[in-house]
């Protein structure tokens, strides 16, 4: 083929591709500057139905595509609830059992073929009732029912009776077009927190019926954004022009000059969210690729990988970015709203409960020796760049109930003490049981395991008796936990709301596997205190109960705990924002403003 003909053919192909692109991209106005915020997530959601939004990936999208009754204030720390779709905080009856919530009138779902004439209708109280009912419909295979299970009057019975949506649930009603009433079986002070989550997002019945299974990838909500495209590598969200106009009020969102002044968010006062025209969410699983995407300017915000912290930070105490980083990016280093811990499976007679009381005592001694042998300082240094906060028990530092003065002996390494404990209870290298350390296969998890094995080696635990139980995926690992097959369980718990109840329930007897109590811990005193505290409003009395429960867990050596990681968040100076990775939520994205205009064609 001659050179001239080649050029013509290439030109035709190029033109065809250009036309193809032009056909598939929705570009309202090719010349209009578009503010695009580019967000990176380390995994991709597979289902955008709110009843399936059990992970941070789905939750980020769901809370931007749909509305929830409440959210957390954008800037306030500690976290404070604020109305979102609701007009105010709930009215709670004196006995704490009835919640009445008014919702805003004039909120509309996005236009969609699911609606009559394709025009989104007004969101009403009945939509919320329908959305919560879906969690109790066996057909939906919903993952959020645990938030309200045995809590709302008649809801569990409604499921047992066949989940007929026409049937009314006495504890979950729309009193009128704009008023919701929730009646509880017992006080549940955490209820408003549950209504911030993607699980509680409001969906229209028409869309669920219209799309059927496809509803998982065809979100129809009333949130600040609507979905433009979605694949395994990227989701594109565009501004919902019908989103209600609520100007940004820094003071109402918890603005404090000393905490937030450096971000410039105050200058956005009066702007109407969503502040970006578009959000491009890149799903980049590989840490190095994510970091490179950030450094090369392909994404605006990142949680810096631990391995990069040496290149990012000049000083750890106080935390300070290197000049070349500080020049280009903003830095924020919040503690995570959660913690990392390794639980013993108490159902495993080799390490947990044993029917022989003498062996039971020996097993407890073995667990306590392992706890003593664990070196949190080395763990923090090797895997968390010495930035994490180690604390005793399961009440993390971000919760209001955290006790900074609690005895730290359970997180202080004591090799000699551990050896003495083993010797005292007749444990020798020959009769020590084989430990099976479970994890979802990844480099970081394997390194955690190897370090654990090295720690145990220091107290004479034979390395060949400490086995890796690697699962191909987190799903497999999680399934094994539910089936009580894992002996040593290392997990990171991301709190659902800022209340220590959310970590205490991890050890509540009736929540044992397949529930959230993967340790299968059963303790009469702990369970009694949990039941007592679970109906109490926040108060010094309730805090005292939480702290007693915490001590029970420490004394029983049921877990090697705990450590809250410091997240090193970086974002480009083109973005005016205050990022937040807490509580399975993406509400902050509506407040992100991008100074540089980016054209959609980029």
């Amino acid at each position, binding site marked *: 083929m001659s050179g001239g003909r080649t050029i013509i053919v290439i030109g035709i192909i190029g033109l065809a591709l250009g036309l193809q692109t032009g056909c598939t991209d929705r570009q309202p106005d090719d010349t209009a500057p578009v503010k695009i915020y580019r967000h990176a997530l380390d995994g991709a959601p597979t289902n955008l139905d709110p009843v399936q939004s059990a992970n941070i990936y789905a939750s980020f999208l769901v809370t931007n595509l749909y509305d929830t009754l409440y959210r957390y204030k954008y800037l306030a720390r500690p976290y404070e609830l604020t109305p979102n779709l609701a007009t105010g905080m709930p009215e709670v009856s004196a006995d704490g059992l009835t919640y009445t919530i008014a919702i805003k009138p004039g909120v509309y779902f996005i236009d969609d073929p699911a609606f009559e004439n394709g025009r989104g209708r007004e969101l009403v109280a009945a939509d919320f009732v329908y959305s919560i009912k879906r969690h109790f419909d066996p057909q939906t295979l919903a993952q959020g029912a645990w938030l309200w299970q045995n809590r709302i009057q008649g809801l569990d019975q409604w499921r047992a009776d066949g989940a007929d949506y026409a049937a009314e649930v006495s504890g979950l009603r729309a009193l009128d077009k704009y008023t919701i009433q929730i009646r509880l079986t017992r006080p549940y002070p955490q209820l408003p927190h549950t209504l911030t989550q993607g699980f509680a997002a409001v969906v229209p019945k028409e869309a669920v019926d219209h799309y059927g299974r496809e509803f998982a990838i065809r979100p129809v909500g009333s949130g600040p954004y609507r979905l433009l495209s979605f694949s395994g590598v990227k989701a594109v969200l565009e501004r919902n022009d019908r989103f209600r106009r609520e100007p940004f009020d820094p003071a109402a969102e918890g603005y404090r000059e000393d905490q937030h002044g450096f971000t410039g968010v105050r200058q956005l006062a009066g702007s109407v969210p969503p502040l970006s025209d578009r959000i491009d969410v890149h799903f980049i699983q590989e840490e190095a690729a994510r970091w490179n995407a950030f450094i090369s300017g392909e994404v605006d915000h990142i949680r810096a990988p631990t391995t990069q912290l040496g290149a990012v930070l000049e000083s750890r105490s106080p935390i300070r970015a290197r000049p070349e980083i500080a020049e280009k990016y903003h830095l924020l280093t919040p503690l995570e709203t959660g913690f990392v811990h390794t639980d013993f499976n108490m159902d495993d007679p080799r390490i947990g409960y044993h029917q022989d009381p003498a062996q039971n005592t020996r097993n407890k001694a073995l667990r306590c020796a392992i706890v003593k042998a664990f070196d949190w300082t080395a763990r923090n240094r090797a895997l968390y760049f010495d930035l994490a906060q180690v604390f005793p028990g399961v009440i993390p530092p971000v919760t209001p109930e955290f006790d900074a003065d609690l005895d730290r002996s359970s997180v202080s390494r004591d090799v000699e003490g551990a050896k003495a404990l083993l010797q005292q209870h007749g444990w020798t290298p020959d009769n020590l049981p084989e430990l099976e350390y479970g994890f979802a*296969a990844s480099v970081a998890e394997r*390194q955690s395991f190897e370090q654990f094995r090295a720690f145990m080696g220091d107290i004479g635990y034979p390395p060949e008796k400490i086995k890796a*139980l690697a699962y191909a995926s987190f799903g497999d690992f999680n399934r094994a936990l539910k089936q009580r097959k894992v002996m040593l369980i290392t997990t990171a718990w991301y709190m659902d709301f800022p209340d220590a109840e959310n970590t205490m329930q991890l050890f509540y007897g009736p929540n044992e596997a397949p529930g959230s109590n993967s340790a299968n811990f059963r303790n009469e005193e702990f369970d009694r205190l949990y039941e007592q505290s679970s109906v109490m409003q926040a108060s010094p009395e309730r805090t005292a109960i939480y702290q007693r429960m915490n001590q029970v867990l420490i004394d029983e050596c049921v877990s090697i705990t705990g450590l809250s990681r410091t997240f090193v968040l970086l974002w480009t100076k083109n973005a005016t924002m205050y990022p937040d990775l807490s509580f399975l939520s993406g509400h902050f994205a509506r407040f992100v403003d991008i100074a540089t205009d980016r054209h959609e064609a980029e």
Partner: protein
Amino acid sequence: MTRPASDSIAVAGTHSGKGPWMRAGQKLRRDYYGLAGLLIVLLYFFIALGVWLGFWGQDWSAAGGGQWESAGREHWLGTNRLGQDIFQRAVFSVRTAFEIGLVVAVLSTLIGAVLGAVAGYFSGRWIDELVLWLKGVLDAIPFYLFVAAIAFAFKGSAYAMHIAMISTFWTTTGRLVRGEVIKLKHQEFVEAAKAIGLDEMRIIFRHILPNTTHILLVQATIVFVSAIKSEVILSFLGLGVQDGVSWGLMIAESTQEVLVGQFYNFITASLFLFILVMGFNLFSDALQDALDPRSTGSRP
């Protein structure tokens, strides 16, 4: 009476009065590249043997050093993120490589030999078609997809990788053996065995299969090195070694380290792997040349 296997080979093709194994030995001794490869393999085997016997490499899991220490007297090739000695880990990985290589090479060669011989002897009959169909099915599945499926089916078993490799690596050996058996079964010594009424299984396994030893030997070395390479790739992907250490795991660890300028893990594991694979390739090539009656001498 049938002749011994070695005589059978002599019948199959002789050029001089020397036996085929002796000629192969002579050719191999003249192939200096092959001898260098053999030396490398023996050196690695010696290292693996020392690890098996507990002479060295035993502290591969201890985290006694500081994070990312440079190479020095205490840690010859530095330390990794956890403070583990990289040299100790690389040395222990030799044992991992040989364990996997040996298990996979022996079992897949055995399966390939048996199924190939049976298929070849009964070529054109249903049993041959069955083996060919099975081979076709297994060859059609992408290897790494197959390993992932096996790993999933065995729920993270430490042997998922072995099973996947053995299940797929026998097919080439089986195909080569089948072809050779089809050729051999028409030879005089087989006709003689049939004539005196020996049963078919005895003919296949006592008289025909030993005459494919040269194929099996070469195939075993090729499978051995393929298994080691596959193990490294699978371990890198998280589908391989589940407990212990291997070069693949070390390279996987290094993906986080190279970004911050720490190359010891990556270079050490890669070099250990490269040298062994190179040694095995040189040796298996030399072996192939030596056992090939059509080959005239050493490589240029």
